[in-house]
């Protein structure tokens, strides 16, 4: 009986993991620029991998394989943020501008509003050509919030 419950629970975890993994991959596929794609990949890197590995660990029971799975999970949970951080830093350093980021800035409000409409109506538009920007910090913070919002809306 408890075996059956365990099996059902592990199935649930595996299914959820597959779902989130696919969601992350679709985000990687559809998102408009590097930073939002990064956000989407983090979904599959944490939720997807976490659920899949938990499901497998439940199925295996207590054994050496569980330890291996946990080590893999730990490595991936640590390495994912590091890699993403390095990626974002390198991209910003290289002058890749986050898309739709400048509608928080007062001076270019009107232009960016039109750009946002264009961007949201055409999600799979390729990222705009990299342009140099001086005010990086403001753009970074606003891009983070926007990226999150977009990611959640696409997840539903």
């Amino acid at each position, binding site marked *: 009986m408890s075996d059956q419950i365990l099996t059902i629970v592990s199935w649930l975890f595996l299914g959820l993991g597959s779902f989130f993994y696919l969601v992350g991959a679709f985000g990687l596929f559809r998102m408009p620029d590097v930073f939002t794609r990064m956000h989407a990949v983090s979904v*599959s890197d944490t939720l997807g991998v976490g659920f899949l590995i938990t499901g497998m660990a439940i199925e295996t029971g207590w054994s050496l394989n569980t330890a291996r799975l946990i080590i893999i999970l730990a490595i991936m949970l640590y390495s994912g943020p590091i890699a993403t951080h390095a990626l974002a830093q390198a991209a910003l350093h290289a002058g890749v501008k986050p898309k739709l980021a400048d509608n928080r800035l007062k001076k270019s409000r009107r232009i960016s509003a039109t750009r946002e409409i264009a961007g949201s109506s055409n999600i799979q538009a390729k990222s705009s050509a990299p342009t140099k920007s001086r005010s990086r910090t403001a753009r970074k913070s606003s891009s983070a919030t926007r990226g999150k919002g977009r990611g959640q809306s696409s997840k539903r």
Partner: protein
Amino acid sequence: MEGLTEGLFMYMVAAIAILVALGLAVFRALAGPTVFDRALAANAVGTGAIMLLAIVGFLTGRPEFLDIGILYALLNIIATLAVLKFFRYGDLGHAGEEPKD
């Protein structure tokens, strides 16, 4: 797959999901307009390879090979960091961060 009992069904689903995800990541690696897209996709492909390895290990009934998954995970982060460090500084041996052996 002759040994496809009910217990393995969910593994099959997960394997197919991971394969689809791999395909999407490869598409992004090919189409990605900037190099960072490609690096991100490479990272995603590495993750997919690890998960596929684990799932296939369970599918074929020999999950001992998860050790290799650990190696993949470490390699993945090293490769990604090498590429990104290269872009950030234009040099792998920058600023004394090269490991002193």
